[in-house]
């Protein structure tokens, strides 16, 4: 059974600071996604990472994937209040095509 763990579960950070969210998964995966969810809202796709060493960047967010370590990171650079949300990683188990297994989520709160 594929298990996906994120840490921290909750992160409070000041504007302008940098921080990293970690996503660990337990078995071989074909690809990994990062999603953002604002309170009471649906999920917004941020990144898809397909291979070992993949790195994607969008604005102040950068995601990377290390398939050997079964680890993905979401790095936040110079945080701003608008980044406050819950971030989920989701992993596709090798050979299961479309089945996403989600992590528990990291609730990010950026304070002024």
């Amino acid at each position, binding site marked *: 059974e594929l298990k996906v763990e994120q840490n921290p579960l909750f992160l409070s950070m000041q504007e302008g600071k940098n921080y990293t969210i970690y996503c660990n998964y337990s078995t071989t995966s*074909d*690809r990994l*996604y990062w*999603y953002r969810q604002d309170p*009471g*809202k*649906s*999920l*917004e*796709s941020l990144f*898809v990472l397909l291979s070992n060493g993949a790195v994607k960047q969008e604005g102040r967010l950068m995601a990377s994937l290390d398939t050997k370590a079964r680890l993905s990171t979401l790095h936040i650079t110079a945080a701003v209040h608008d980044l406050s949300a819950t971030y*989920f990683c*989701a992993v*596709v188990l090798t050979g299961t*095509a*479309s*089945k*996403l*297994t*989600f*992590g*528990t*989520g990291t609730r990010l709160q950026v304070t002024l």
Partner: protein
Amino acid sequence: SQTIHQWPATLVQPVGSPLSLECTVEGTSNPNLYWYRQAAGRGLQLLFYSVGIGQISSEVPQNLSASRPQDRQFILSSKKLLLSDSGFYLCAWSAGLEETQYFGPGTRLLVL
């Protein structure tokens, strides 16, 4: 561009009552469709997915069922709701089994 709709947005139902949630996708043909449930403060759990009309795969045995009567319509049903069915139900679509899943606005269900 593609758009995904869910109806209703919120629903309060008594225990033992039936349920029907609808999801429709516009702007694409033969999408893969998915139903997820998110319990309060938790990650997402895949309930059902469909690769075509009448083709439903169940991921979690429970008192829910899904149907796909038309190419771009996906319905989640129950004959008798349980308290544990409360949650945020999200429909998603993807262009292929290995493509990014895009989520609808969700239906918030409260069973009393």
